[in-house]
């Protein structure tokens, strides 16, 4: 090793306060201190304020009797006997109900509108574009109020109810649908339905294996429909139609029988579906545009007609781009269902963060529980969608 090289001058020691590591640790310590100070200050104030206002804390209210009525209950609930905890579950189920049905409708409308925007029919594309522009630029709350106050509340009253063929009655108290009444002998139908589903899945697997082996396609859709719908229907007829319908009847002041669908529910469902559909349409359009034109042209040159080309070539590839933003739209719909409180649909926020909070005064616990619920829904949904996403992700070679 040559030793006659001039010794490298040691770099001057950086003053400790200029050392990035020291600085970073100092910043973080300061930040921690500030956060801890704020949290403690807030907690101390909260305790002070709560004791002064004589509000109980803790989750003891969960098992107290609620004492208020809820207009739509999917599970058994009575104001006298049920607890706040029960009210919570009623509200949560109502939220999930409207969100679930809303997601289905929004997806259907959204896909139709999104594909229409790319139609070769100029008029259709423009109308779809107009729908998206108008709906997206109006606040959801305004739309909900419009559907509820200007449309559903403006329907005729009970005496002048509109009867729609099929036993549906429509008035300003809501929709009244025929209720299926179960009689005996339904077990066989259920059993056949189960058998049909299992058979359809088995056929699916067999058909795919055969197609991979021989290239021959089996009529999957027809067989599936036959097994899942035809078989139970046949059994249903064979055992003598053990289902009857109880039709709603118009009384003088009320409607007897049938399933009552609250106008609040209908307004919320309309509003959420139509609003979210506009966003889903944009997601779908972007997804389809992301599939390169060459794919469509190749499909056409193979002799596929526009419909099958869209269904078999474009949409499966577009789904990769569509799924992540679609998920966030589903979550938005679920979160937006909290606007129910403005029109009085008994969702989680209306029941729990509204009535329960007002009755107990336990703001911290109630708001925290509500937020936790939505956080859990968000996290679970994104987890499920991540799993799906990793399954359909492009495998690059």
């Amino acid at each position: 090793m040559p030793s006659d090289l001039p010794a490298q001058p040691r770099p001057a020691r950086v003053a400790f306060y200029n050392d990035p590591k020291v600085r970073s640790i100092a910043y973080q310590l300061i930040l921690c201190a500030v956060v801890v100070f704020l949290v403690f200050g807030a907690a101390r104030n909260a305790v002070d304020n709560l004791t002064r206002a004589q509000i109980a804390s803790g989750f003891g209210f969960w098992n107290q009797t609620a004492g208020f009525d809820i207009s739509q209950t999917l599970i058994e609930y009575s104001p006298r006997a049920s607890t706040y905890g029960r009210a919570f579950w009623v509200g949560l189920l109502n939220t999930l109900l409207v969100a679930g049905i809303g997601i289905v409708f929004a997806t259907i409308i959204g896909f139709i509108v999104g594909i229409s925007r790319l139609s070769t029919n100029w008029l259709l594309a423009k109308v779809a574009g107009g729908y998206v522009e108008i709906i997206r630029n109006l606040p959801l709350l305004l739309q909900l109020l419009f559907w509820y106050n200007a449309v559903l509340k403006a329907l005729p009253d009970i005496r002048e109810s509109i009867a729609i063929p099929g036993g549906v009655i429509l008035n300003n108290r809501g929709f009244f649908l025929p209720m299926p009444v179960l009689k005996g002998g339904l077990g066989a139908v259920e059993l056949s339905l189960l058998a049909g589903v299992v058979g359809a899945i088995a056929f699916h697997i067999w058909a795919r294996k055969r197609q991979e082996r021989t290239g021959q396609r089996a009529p999957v859709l027809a067989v599936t429909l036959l097994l899942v719908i035809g078989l139970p229907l046949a059994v249903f007829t064979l055992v003598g139609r053990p289902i009857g319908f109880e039709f709603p009847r118009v009384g003088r002041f009320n409607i007897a029988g049938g399933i009552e669908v609250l106008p609040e529910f209908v307004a919320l469902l309309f509003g959420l579906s139509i609003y979210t559909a506009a966003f889903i349409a944009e997601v779908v359009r972007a997804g389809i545009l992301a599939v390169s034109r060459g794919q469509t042209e190749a499909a056409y040159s193979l002799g596929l007609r526009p419909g099958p080309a869209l269904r078999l070539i474009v949409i499966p590839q577009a789904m990769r781009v569509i799924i992540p933003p679609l998920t966030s739209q589903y979550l938005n719909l679920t979160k937006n269902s909290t606007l129910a409180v403005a029109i009085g649909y008994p969702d989680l926020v209306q029941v729990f963060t509204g009535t329960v909070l007002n009755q107990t005064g336990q703001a911290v616990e109630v708001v925290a529980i509500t937020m936790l619920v939505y956080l859990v829904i968000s996290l679970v949904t994104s987890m499920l969608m991540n799993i799906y996403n990793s399954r359909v992700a492009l495998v690059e070679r």
Partner: protein
Amino acid sequence: MTMAEGELALAEPAFVRRTPIAPRPPPAAMTGAVAWLRANLLSTPFNIALTILITLLLAWAMTEIMKFLVLDAVWSGNDRDACLESVQHRVIGACWPFVWERLPYFIYGSYPIPLRWRVDVFFLLLAVGIVWLLWLKAPRRDLGAIYFFGVLPVMSFILLTGWSAIGLEPVDSVLWGGVLVTIVVASVGIVVSLPLGIILALGRRSRMPVVRSLSVIFIEFVRGVPLITVLFMAGVMLPLFVPEQYSPDKLVRALIGIAIFASAYMAEVVRAGLQAIPRGQYEGAMAVGLGYAQLMRLIVLPQALTVTIPNIVNTYIGLFKDTTLVFIVGIFDLLRTIEVARIDPKWATPVTSTTGYAVAAIFYLVFCYGMSRYARAMEARRAKSGRR
């Protein structure tokens, strides 16, 4: 050479055209309006059916809307009798005298009438700030930013709440309402969310674990819950967390909720912009010896924010629509004033609700559509500047 060929060669043509014939025009069916119609509206039987169906549907919808808004509408009157079918004995459309009478309430809420000029001045100052900031050829746009994010909020606050020391009578925020509140809530969200969002986005990309995890927790928590719960939190929990004498009033609490919510969404938009900046920009800046603050201020943020302007504006559109939610925590924004006015017995008729909602729809449509056009224009401009 055979005989026949020689003879042919010798035969003089009687006429040789020296100039090309002018091309014949394409068949009428292939050009102009007809071709366009055939290609875009009538290409297949299915398309023909669709076109007819949509035309009928549009014609029906348009006539209904026109009838409601203009033809059957009531244009003058003093109370609900003017808009009642049972009194007027005709089909009644929109009830415009209701809107006309209530317009001041829709704009100012219950702001004291002699002091409403202050609100007008506020609108004017805001308009100046917006034009200064958005109009790309405006002079000294850097001063415009300082004006909009620094001077304007202070001036507006003094102007709207009043300050006895300079002779402006104080006005309680309970009296504010209508468009004024909608604009105030939206502007506060816009002015606060951008700086806070930038800080949160930088925090999320920071290498300090504490800073990063706190930012991530805040952003993901707020984005995971509905705005209403954030507003409820600000409305009912915030007063618990501060000493009683400092408890903020209702409007301020709603503003805090909106600001928290908008910042979290803005943080994600800014983060996307930061991620679009190539690594070389960071490395280049570090190589010339810039510190973190200079690096961000001079190199990264200007580029990141420019890239993401359309997304920022889209977030603002969402924010503008979300301001309606303050309605639910009892603030008198435009929608709430309309809700109050439409059930007022003086004007309550079957058409009053729809008329009121039509006014609100036009208001929100104009603002949101304007913003989205601006975002699109910026995007097109950027796309052009990126082209070689």
